[in-house]
C-alpha cells in the first residue's frame, strides 16, 4: 500500500485501497477509541489527527433495505430489480455500510444477521470495489 499517496488523497482512500485488495478496513481513533465513519483526517471527538485503520470482519445486521425497480442511469450493469441493504457493523462501533444484497429476499427484516463478501459493482463503465451482503 502506498501510504504516502493515501495520506494526500481523500480521507477514505485507505478504505478503497483495502477493499480493492479484498479486505474491509475501517477507521478507529487511537486517541479516544471511537470508530469514525465517514472517514476523517481528524477525530472531531478528541482532536487526534489521522485516526488509524483496522481490519474489520464482514459481519453485520440488517438496518434497512430497498429494492430498486426504476432503471436509474448507470445501474444497467446491475440490472433491476435489485436489493440494497444498509448493514450495521457491531464490531466497528455500529457504524453502517451499504451493499448490494445476495440471497433469499423473503428473509429481509430488521436485524437479519449478515455476512459480507467483497466483489465489484459495474456502474457505467467502471468496476467499483463493493460489498455484497447475504444472510449469515
Amino acid at each position, binding site marked *: 500500500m502506498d501510504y504516502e499517496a493515501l495520506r494526500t488523497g481523500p480521507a477514505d482512500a485507505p478504505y478503497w485501497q483495502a477493499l480493492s485488495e479484498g479486505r474491509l478496513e475501517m477507521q478507529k481513533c487511537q486517541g479516544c477509541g471511537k470508530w469514525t*465513519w*465517514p472517514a476523517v483526517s481528524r477525530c472531531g471527538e478528541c482532536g487526534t489527527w489521522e485516526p488509524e485503520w483496522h481490519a474489520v470482519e464482514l459481519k453485520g445486521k440488517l438496518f*434497512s433495505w430497498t429494492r*430498486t425497480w426504476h432503471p*436509474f442511469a*448507470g445501474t444497467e450493469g446491475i440490472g433491476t430489480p435489485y436489493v*440494497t441493504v444498509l448493514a450495521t457493523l457491531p464490531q466497528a462501533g455500529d457504524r453502517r455500510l*451499504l451493499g448490494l444484497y445476495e440471497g433469499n429476499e423473503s428473509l429481509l427484516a430488521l436485524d437479519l444477521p449478515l455476512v459480507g463478501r467483497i466483489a465489484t459493482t459495474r456502474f457505467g463503465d467502471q468496476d467499483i470495489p463493493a460489498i455484497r451482503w447475504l444472510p449469515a
Partner: protein
Amino acid sequence: MANGLMGKVAAAGVGVLQYKRAGAPYGERGVLTRAIVAACEDAGLDPADVDGFVSYGDDHNQPDRLMPELGTKELRLSTAVWGGGGGGLLGAFELAAMAIATGQCKAVVVYRALVQGNSGRLSTAVMAHHVNNHFIAAGMMSPAQICAMRAMRMALQHNLPQESIEQLVLADYYHGSRNPEAVSYGQQFDIETYRNARWIAEPLRLFDCSRENDGAGAILLVSAEHARDLKQKPVYLLAAAIGAEKGWGDLLENDDDYTSTGFEPIARRLWESTGLGPKDIDVTQLYENFTYQGVSSLVGHGLISWESAVEDLKFDNLIAPSGKLPLNTSGGNLAQGFIHGINIAIEAVRQLRGQSANPVPDAKTCLVCGGPGSPINSSAIFANQIP
C-alpha cells in the same frame, strides 16, 4: 433566545409561472425574470429597486445576469444557500431577512427557477453533492433511493402503515384539484392509480415522488414598515432557521436517528425564538419531495409523533377548511407542482393573505418546512400579524 428577525421583515409580493416539464415557452432566465417582475407588480414596487437576491439548491441564475432586464439600480446582496437540495429553501428567507433587518438591503427577492434543458434537474444537483462511490457501489445513485432506504426504516421501526402515507397524498391531491394553478387542477385523484403505480424503489411508488415542472417562483421581502405602505397585506416572517446538529448531515447513512429528517434543532430554534409551539401553527406547507420524508418532517417539528401518526394522518384532519392539521393547501409538491419547493412558500403567503384556493379560516400562522431529504434543512414561520 434573542430573535432579531421576529416581525421585522415581511413578504410583500409573490410571483410564479409554472408549466409542464419541458413546456416553458422561454428560457430559464426569461421565466425567472417574469416571476420576479410579477412579484414586484404584486407588491407595487419597481423591480429596479430590488437590491438583493437569494436562492438555494444550486439555482444557476446569478443575480448579476438578471440586472439588465430588471433595471437593477444597485446590487447589494447576491448569494445562495449551500447544499444541493430543497433543504435550503427557508434558509434563503433567513439570509434575505437578515440583510433587510440589519439595513444592508431594502428589497430582497428569494427565488428558484427550473427549466428542463437549461439547468438540469434537482436530483442531479443533489447527486453532485451527496452521491459518491460508497453509494453507487451499492446501486444507489438517486435521492429517491436514499429516501426509500430511509422510508423503509421509518415504516419498519415505527410500524407506519402505507394507509397513513396515502392520507397525505390524498390531501395534497384534494387541495390541488381545487387550485386553478395546480397541475392536478380539476382532476379526480384515483387512489387505485396510486396503489398500482410502478415501484421506483420500495417502499416508494411513482406517486410518492415529487415530479419536476418547468417554472420559476419569486417572493419579494421588505421591512415590515415598508410592507405596510405597499399594495398587499403584509405577511410577516416571525422566524427562519437552517442547519444541522451533531450526528446528522452528509454521513454516508450514519445519521444517529436514521428515521429523522434532521429538523429537530431547526424546530427548536423556531419555537424558542418566537415563543410559539406546534399548537400555535394554523396551517403547514410541507416539502414532500417523497411522502415518507414529509411525514418525518411533521414529526421533527412536533406536529405529530411517530406514536400518534396513524391517528393524526387522516384525510379529514389534513384538509382545509375543517381539518385540525391542514397542510399543503395548494396541493404541495406532489399535486400543485414542483419547482424545487418555492411554490410552498408562495402558498404560505397567499394563505395568510386570504388568497388561497383552499383557505383555512382565520389562519394567522403558517409553518413552512424545507426539503427533508437534505443533509442541511430549514424551516420558517410566517404570520399575518405579529403575536
